[in-house]
């Protein structure tokens, strides 16, 4: 199955735009409201279809209708109840935000749900009201401190040979273990129903949080659970970037010698040596093969920051840009490892550029406004970035997230919900984007599908920013 057959770019024309903008303010009174509701019903599907990017996961193919009844207790241990809740909630959320299935609402389920294969009543699932194509079910039980989960995925329309997947997981009973098992099972389902692309339920997101009073690097599971502090510098740590193999975290921090790149070993749980560059050093970025790091630096007394590439050890830094104006925020095309996108203020307000890794063929991608924080999609085809498209006096100046097709430079807007949205970062499955936004009133981390749907807030404590999604 081809997941990104075509980049569909359709935007509202100006007439549609003015209707949608007028909607909340211009109509008063009951009669007008009724008319408005009618117009909304008539237009909403067309408006949504037009102004939101469709990256292909939902095009042409109807999503599989998947029913996921709560897993049943497998033993009579008192620990079961809490762990079942964790497992069921985690599994449901993983599948819901995956973007590859349509979950059948639990209110359509029959009263008797299966916990074992013999208990599956096919007719109760494959016909309306549930009308499910697939059924994920199973049981969870604790016995003498050991948690065991059995899960199955059934093609309920294929009664002769329904089993697509059967899995068993065991570990010491704990909330974390139940969560991991749900993630593993969800990823198995997503892998089979989502065109053979690995799921992301076991991925990590690194980010900056000031909840200790200092900006430090933190990490969390992709769904926002298990948030924990990584650095303890008591200074300012920014721009975390995890290595492709997940073992090292590069970031920029304010040291007594100024802004330097630091390297943290996830395996050793401590900082490891990385050479001091001198000057101001910002925004490290890993190449897709993990052998190189690009970054912005004003080393050597430069009047502004330029883009450099060094070995992953920090050795032999080489300068790629020479223009006047700050250059910052490089990101590799991890598919080819031959191009870098970056931000450059050579013409005034910052714009997105691309170049080859030797610094040649510099191309300006954005034509106006304030464009920053490029992030290259894993498939190499798109750039996600933050853009205040119309900038200046009298303009609203909202910073929204956009996607640009590299080849055609066509773009679509992903966020429309106000606030300042910045630092988009792709998930490894190319289907999700994590970003920072102050739409809730404070700066927090959110995730969404790459078509702008399934928006979820992941952090709630302190101010959180600059999310970076692990590569696997």
């Amino acid at each position, binding site marked *: 199955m081809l997941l990104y057959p075509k980049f569909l770019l359709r935007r509202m024309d100006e007439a549609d735009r003015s209707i949608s903008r007028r909607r909340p303010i211009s109509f008063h009174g009951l009669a007008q409201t009724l008319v408005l509701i009618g117009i909304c019903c008539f237009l909403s599907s067309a408006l949504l279809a037009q102004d939101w990017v469709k990256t292909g996961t939902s095009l042409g193919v109807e999503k599989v209708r998947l029913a996921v009844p709560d897993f049943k207790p497998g033993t009579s241990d008192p620990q079961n109840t809490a762990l079942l809740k964790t497992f069921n909630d985690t599994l449901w959320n993983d599948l819901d935000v995956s973007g590859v299935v349509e979950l059948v609402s639990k209110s359509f389920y029959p009263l008797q749900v299966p916990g074992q294969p013999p208990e599956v009543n096919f007719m109760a699932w494959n016909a309306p009201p549930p009308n499910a194509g697939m059924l994920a079910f199973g049981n969870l039980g604790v016995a003498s401190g050991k948690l065991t989960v059995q899960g199955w995925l059934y093609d309920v329309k294929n009664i002769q040979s329904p089993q697509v997947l059967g899995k068993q997981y065991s570990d010491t009973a704990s909330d974390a273990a139940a969560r991991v098992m749900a993630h593993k099972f969800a990823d198995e389902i997503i892998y089979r129903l989502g065109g053979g692309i690995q799921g992301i339920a076991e991925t990590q997101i690194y980010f900056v949080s000031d909840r200790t009073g200092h*900006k430090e690097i933190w990490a969390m599971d992709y769904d926002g659970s298990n948030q924990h502090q990584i650095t303890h510098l008591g200074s*300012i740590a*920014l*721009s975390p970037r995890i290595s492709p193999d997940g073992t090292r975290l590069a970031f920029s921090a*304010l040291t007594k010698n*100024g*802004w330097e790149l630091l390297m943290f070993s996830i395996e050793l749980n401590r900082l490891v040596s990385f050479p001091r560059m001198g*000057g*101001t050093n*910002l*925004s490290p970025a890993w190449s897709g093969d993990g052998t190189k790091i690009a970054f*912005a630096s*004003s080393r050597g007394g*430069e*009047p*502004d*920051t330029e883009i450099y590439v060094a070995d992953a050890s920090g050795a032999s830094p080489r300068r790629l840009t020479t223009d006047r*104006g*700050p*250059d*910052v*925020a490089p990101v590799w095309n991890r598919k080819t490892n031959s191009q870098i996108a970056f*931000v450059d*203020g050579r013409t*005034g*307000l*910052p714009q997105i550029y691309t170049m080859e890794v030797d610094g040649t063929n510099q191309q300006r991608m954005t034509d106006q406004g*304030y464009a*920053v*924080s490029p992030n290259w999609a894993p498939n190499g085809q798109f750039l996600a970035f*933050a853009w205040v498209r119309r900038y200046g006096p009298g303009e609203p*100046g909202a910073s929204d997230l956009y996607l640009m097709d590299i080849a055609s430079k066509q773009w679509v807007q992903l966020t429309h919900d106000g606030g300042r949205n*910045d*630092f988009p970062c792709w998930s490894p499955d190319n289907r999700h984007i994590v970003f920072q936004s102050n739409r809730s009133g404070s700066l927090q981390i959110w995730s969404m599908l790459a078509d702008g749907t399934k928006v979820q807030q992941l952090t709630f404590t302190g101010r959180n*920013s*600059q999310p970076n999604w692990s590569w696997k």
Partner: protein
Amino acid sequence: MKWILLVVALGALLMLGACGKKKQPPPPPPPPAPPAPTASIAVDPNTIQAGGSASLTWQTSNATDVSIDGIGAVQPNGSQSVSPTDSTTYHLVAKGAGGTQEATARLTVTQAPPPPPPTANVTDQDLFNQNVKDVYFDYDKSDIRGDQQTSVQADAQFFTQHTNMNFTIEGHCDERGSTEYNLALGDQRASAVKSALTTLGISASRIKTISYGKEKPFCTESNEACWQQNRRGHFVYQK
């Protein structure tokens, strides 16, 4: 006048009646005594340095009137930050229908070590702070604008007269735009001020630069007056 007599007579009757009642059998047993209030108070940490603060937390139950000496009437349960200059005993009094309960918590305040004796540097620092003017920038710009040239020239003159002084130029930006780009822009601003001073004859070896981007704003409101305050090259004395 008859009604006055009548009232007096009635009053007398009532009083007599009232007095008479006292001699009646004892009243029914009083309702059970209301529950006695409970109270507790704690301070964390219980030792601070002068100038520091601690968190005072209290809980009471069955109390209608709760007060803490030195703070006054408070909610039945609560907490607040305190930063006394001297050691203090917080005395909590919880009064309720069932009586009065007291609780205390002691916060010890240690005096900060005495400031180091003044040296000649303090004078230099004062001189520096009084004379050196920060340089302000336009939005997204790092070139020294016309109205800031006088500040730069005055600063250069001051540094020429005080050759013993080294200093740091901090580049700051307003809150708009991305964290990373603002750090790069702040770096460029600090470099621009440094460059202007070296052009006027100040040795580059005396000048350090650092960018704070939008990490350490002088002013935190979202308006142009505040943003202008934050778009600057800020001088810091370095001995």
